[in-house]
């Protein structure tokens, strides 16, 4: 009999585990967690790890960028001057604004302000949509000027080949970034709906919080993309 207990358990005694005082009967608690705190911490860590892998995913593209930028500094600067930095700057401001409304939305959720959650998240969605709209305008412009890499790519000057690499990276990085926003918007809508229905409060608002983390991460990627892609050639007299 003694063997059983030596195995590391204190035997068949039901042991109260974690702080049961907190959110123990909340409808959002999933069966395998002891309480809402454990559930929240686990979800938040999971989201951060997801963001860590996203950083490495974009990291591969940043590496391609870093190497080719170092190989072809002049070509990159010149190609960059074909981008409209004003639109880029506008989008930066829009996206920073959407990060602010997102943060305020999370704030409202933590306080349990039902309508405020919904309105802030809707504001975030609108700003996100503005960003994507500007992006569509920009892409359209590149398409007209034959700056989309591929068979129709046309670029004057001796640096056409490195310029094509620049535009490939431009489209991959901004495209992947836009894709993340497109994924984010329905999630935001869902959160706004749940917030409106009063599903969040001081005790439980993890989904909004995690959506916020994701949205801010997307903002951070853009914070790097803007100077790296748009501003290389800004001090050149091209445009």
């Amino acid at each position, binding site marked *: 009999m003694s063997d059983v207990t030596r195995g590391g358990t204190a035997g068949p005694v039901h042991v109260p585990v974690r702080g049961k005082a907190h959110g123990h009967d909340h409808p959002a608690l999933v069966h395998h967690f002891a309480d809402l705190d454990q559930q929240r911490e686990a979800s938040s860590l999971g989201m951060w790890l997801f963001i860590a892998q996203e950083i490495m995913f974009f990291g591969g593209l940043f590496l391609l960028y870093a190497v080719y930028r170092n190989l072809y500094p002049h070509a990159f600067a010149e190609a960059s001057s074909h981008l409209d930095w004003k639109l880029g700057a506008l989008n930066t401001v829009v996206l920073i604004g959407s990060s602010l409304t997102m943060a305020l939305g999370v704030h409202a959720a933590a306080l349990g302000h039902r309508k405020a959650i919904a309105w802030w998240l809707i504001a975030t969605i609108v700003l996100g949509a503005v960003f994507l709209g500007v992006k569509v305008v920009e892409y359209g412009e590149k398409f007209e000027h034959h700056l989309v890499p591929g068979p129709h790519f046309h670029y004057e000057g*001796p640096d056409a080949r490195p310029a094509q690499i620049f535009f490939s990276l431009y489209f991959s990085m901004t495209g992947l970034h836009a894709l993340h926003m497109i994924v984010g918007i329905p999630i935001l809508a869902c959160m706004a709906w749940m917030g409106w229905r009063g599903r969040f409060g001081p005790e439980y608002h993890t989904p909004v919080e995690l959506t916020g983390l994701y949205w801010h991460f997307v903002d951070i990627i853009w914070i790097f993309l803007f100077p790296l892609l748009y501003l290389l050639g800004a001090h050149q007299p091209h445009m």
Partner: protein
Amino acid sequence: MPPGIPLFPDGASTMAPRVDALYLFLVALSAFFSIIIFTAVIVFAVRFRRRSEGERPPAILGSLALELVWTLVPLGIVAVIFVWSTELFFSMHRVPPEAMEVYVVGKRWMWKAQHLTGQREINELHVPVGVPVRLLLTSEDVIHSFFVPAFRVKKDALPGRYSILWFEATRPGKYHLFCAEYCGTKHSAMIGTVTVMEPAAFQAWLSGGAAGQSLASAGEKLFQDLGCATCHRPDTLARGPNLEGLFGNPVRLADGGAITADESYIRESIVTPSAKVVAGFQPIMPTYQGLVAEEGLMQLVAYVRSLQRPAVAGGPPTGTSVQGAPAGPGASPGPAPPGQERP
């Protein structure tokens, strides 16, 4: 091992005994540690086998002293291997200056070699014994790898850039040449023979056959045909840098940097002229990417290499290997264009 099973490859280069020595050292080391581990595992498993179900062995938590020993001792051993192998690796990269040049292009699925004297070979390479040979390698398509097991050397031939491999054969004979980097359907058929000959026999081989023109003069012809001489000329009408005496010397670039004019630089300047513009010149040269095959590029490189500045006394920068190449185009040496570095 029964007879008939080969255990050790032929060694026929100066590098072979050095690589073998490191290999044998590592084999002995591995055997030593494997035997210690195997013996210990088996002896412990038998000596301390379970004799009854109720047995309770003592709890041994560990020993800091032992952990330190088996951390630091292997660390010391790998440090020795590291220094030894890195030294060996570096000497594989220190090409003797007097080395004989051969230009090699890998192409699916063959090795094409060009000697400076103009001999061309496919899937064969003839070299003299006792003379260092420097191969300038590149590829026309995918990545290949030039591998001669008997010489213990290998180097990838990459498209779009030059890599260098050197060896000095020590024993006449025929040795395998393999492509070691997977390159598609007939990868395993991209093999050939390296024939090592006595110097006299090699000279005879060089002078025999239809050698035709030397590599540099083939390059010169290409240089004329492509119209390079319109701009690259040693007089005041030059719109491109003068190429005489360029090779092996530093070049100042328009962006303020500097680079030594080696084979890679010359190749790059032909296919991607805008990458490194010489200070004082406009980036007006068109690209010759795709217009000249890799072998042609190598001929151009050999030609540029052969262009010495007539005015300067003293040997050419790269030793004897370019002797016999024609001395530049007939144009008279004018003032060097601005930006052309003088040593």
